[in-house]
């Protein structure tokens, strides 16, 4: 952007015309996305969906869902990171995320307890990927401890590494790392904040944190 461009635009083109141009470009942008998707040159497509835990950014490569991000992570910086780590050909292209948006809505409105989406976990290290692929086996409404997950993926002593795999889960909610708790029943950490974790567990009928053994939180 050239410095002073806005000053010039204001003096040469009226505000109403500028608004009209912005609306026009928004329509052109939607057509562009359609053409770019058809040409197979959108490497990362994204959209933002509303949810009880705040707006969620969902992003997919051609291979599947690659990221779900809470707004507390900063959607702009998440997009920057995708641009750098996968490809800068990142466009807001809602169509590719229709399925994901529908399934998230079904989950939050209680109409569905599972996700059936292609996922792209290629950026996870092999161990983290093993953990992230195991997590969906913990059913809706159930929980497991970090230690139990470590045992299930065949590395019983890698409890901390399981914690890291959960913390770096690129697809929270869809890959239910919120179902993994501390051995003492404490919530443990969560990328979207412990409030979001407690809310997701409550949605699944799990006693809210603070009752019973969760007192220490």
């Amino acid at each position, binding site marked *: 952007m050239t410095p002073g461009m806005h000053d010039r635009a204001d003096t040469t083109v009226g505000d109403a015309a500028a608004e009209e141009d*912005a609306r026009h*470009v928004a329509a052109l942008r939607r057509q562009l996305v359609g053409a770019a998707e058809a040409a197979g040159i959108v490497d*990362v497509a994204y959209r933002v969906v509303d949810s009880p835990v705040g707006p969620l950014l969902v992003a997919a490569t051609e291979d599947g869902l690659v990221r779900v991000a809470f707004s507390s992570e900063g959607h702009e910086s998440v*997009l920057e990171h*995708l*641009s*750098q780590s996968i490809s800068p*050909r*990142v*466009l807001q292209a809602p169509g590719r995320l229709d399925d994901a948006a529908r399934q998230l809505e079904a989950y939050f409105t209680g109409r569905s307890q599972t996700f059936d989406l292609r996922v792209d976990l290629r950026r996870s290290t092999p161990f983290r990927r093993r953990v992230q692929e195991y997590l969906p086996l913990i059913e809706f409404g159930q929980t497991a401890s970090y230690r139990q997950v470590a045992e299930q993926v065949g590395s019983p002593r890698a409890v901390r590494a399981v914690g890291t795999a959960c913390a770096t889960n690129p697809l929270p909610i869809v890959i239910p790392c919120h179902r993994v708790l501390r051995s003492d029943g404490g919530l443990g950490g969560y990328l979207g904040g412990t409030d979001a974790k407690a809310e997701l567990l409550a949605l699944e009928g799990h006693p809210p944190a603070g009752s019973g053994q969760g007192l220490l939180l």
Partner: protein
Amino acid sequence: MSPRPAAALPPFESVVQQHGVAVLRLCRAHVGAQEADDVWQETFLAALRAYGQGLEIADYQAWLIRIARNKAIDHLRAAGRRPEPVAEVGDDVAAAVPDVADPDASVWADVARLPPKQRQCLGYRYLGGLSYAQTAEILGGTAAAARRAAADGIATLRRQQQESTEQRTAEGSTS
């Protein structure tokens, strides 16, 4: 999937958001309001195709403007027209600005009639928001010459708009 780019490029989405309007105005200056949409689409599609393929971009606006200019020339050639408007106005130039009901239409028609150099300098400077130095870089010549051409173009447009206003007033009083 493209390899990891050498320099960190921002998400393409933000490039469209930041420069979409300026490129549209520039396309209008090149091919008229009606066909500007097609040239805009071709410009950003080509930009996206190239984006992240080992590309290093110092100035996004100048990069997009270069692509838009080439697309506009392709577009005019494909339509069987000369890439630059001729000094004498033909039907083809008038046809590039068909929306007579649009109050801006007479301005666009006047812009389309300007000599190429003046029209381009005006377009890059006022519609594209480039500096005269950047304009000169794209068109060749010096920044001072670009400034001169833009000023001449503005003066011509003022005179033509003034004349057409007077003409309308005169027609109104005689009828």
